[in-house]
């Protein structure tokens, strides 16, 4: 048994952490999760392309009224509708 005591000295850091986890405690968890999600959000904003705002602008997808007649008569659809249909 005496020979195992030095081993325990080396294993003390692991045993310490294990003891905390065995009591279902995760110290610093909230801060780490918040930091992780902040980092994810920051990466998402940085990576968003320039045209993203434009893409989210609502636009008419279905031609109605005069535009409907115009589309039927035109050789090619109006630019905006053409984008919406593409």
């Amino acid at each position, binding site marked *: 048994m005496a020979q195992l005591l*030095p081993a325990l*000295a080396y*294993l003390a850091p692991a045993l310490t952490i*294990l003891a905390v986890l065995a009591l279902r405690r995760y110290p610093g968890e909230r801060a*780490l*999760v918040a930091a992780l999600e902040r980092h*994810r959000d920051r*990466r998402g904003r940085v990576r968003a392309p320039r045209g993203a705002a434009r893409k989210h602008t609502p636009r008419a997808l279905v031609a109605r009224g005069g535009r409907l007649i115009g589309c039927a008569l035109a050789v090619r659809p109006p630019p905006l509708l053409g984008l919406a249909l593409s």
Partner: protein
Amino acid sequence: MLFKFTLRRARGRLPAARRATLLSAGLLVSSAAWPLAAEAHGVSGRASLPVPAWLFAWAAAIVLVVSFVLLSAMWSRPRLQQLSERRVCSWPEWIAAPAGLIGLALFALVVYAGYDGVATPSANFDPTFIFIVFWVAVPLSSGVLGNWFGAFSPWRALARAVRWGGARAGLRRRAPLSYPGWLGRWPAVVGLIGFAWLELIYHDHDDPVILASLSLAYFALMLVGMALFGIEQWSERGDAFGGYFGLLARLSAFDVHGGALWRRRLLSALSSFGGESGAVALVLVIIGITTFDGASNGVVWNTLQPHVQSWFTGLGLGDTPADELADSLGMLLAIAIVAGFYWLGVLGMRSVSRRYDARALARSYAHTLVPIGFAYVLAHYFSLLVWQGQAIGYLASNPLGHGSDYFGTAHWHVHYGFIGSTGIWYVQVLALVAGHVCGLALAHDRALATSRSSEEAVRSQYWMLVVMVGFTSLGLWLLSSVNT
């Protein structure tokens, strides 16, 4: 007992966090109460350290905790789950032939030196080449340079030569059997345990004749396996050494295949490892046999082993068989302890989320142990490699020990002043810490890829932190307890 008493009295009044703090403090105080000499043993010599060696375990633990915090906070998306390679350079396919010839020539030299050389292990080429160059230098270099062994593997080279010759003669033959999924990596597991038993336990392990005979037997077994299941299938899964070297080679940022050198993200080739049968066992055995190698030279096993041996002697066995059986049990115990460390982490992760069963989790995270295996091998065998490995210089000129001097290096000798014991201790500590930080990074990356939420990912990694700190501490204790 003092701390248990404190815990009982406090339970009614103190919250759980306080109890954990008391328990941790108790462990800290009790560990500081043992005055340990600042010792670290390599193959020979003692390191002179500025602080007791056990404090290095605490320092390593702090490094791992800081790494864990940084990974959790800043590594926000998986980066290592997909392998992406870029070709650096290529060469003509015929280059494989001379590489294979070199491997075959070296193998022939091993057999020749074994049967015709002197019986003195230190003067014969075989023990140094097999136990230092082949068993230590090849896997370590594979971890850095990639899987170069495949080109030099003598049995693979002969098998490929036979296939090429058969194709030229118009004989095309497919492997009669498909490699069964249930067999997986188990042949490699058994092979590695067998080699470790030979190296660490068998009494005549450095007899050149026995080494040569076993080498021939292994060669024949490999040829049979490749003939039955196919060269590439068997080389990766059935060849103990090919599988072991190939596994460590996944650590590297380089790979050699298809007649080219490829570059990839460091550690990224590990993500696909672990799903096969026996994969977890393979990594645990690699760490376990190295653990036993260290423990067998330490005080604990040297105190316990005679009792186990005498028990076997009492059953009627002779001294040598009893000694070998006792050590065999010790090796299995070391593997079991390593497996226990890992399963503790797996069960802890399972307590965070019940979506996966324990076996699936164990396979999913098996690849995180590969850097630990590499670190253990490097730390444990570094001194052997840099000191006794120099002997290959003069043995290459005089492989049979009969006084030849083929390359003019027969007069060389080992320079022990090349690096001191203190330097070796620091290399060992650095290797262990670096390997475990890599293991943490791999585990964190896998958690991000498989967890449903950030909470689940972060919480599961607390348990992997325990595993990594535990393995680091175990490795440092083993290194410090090796007797000169």
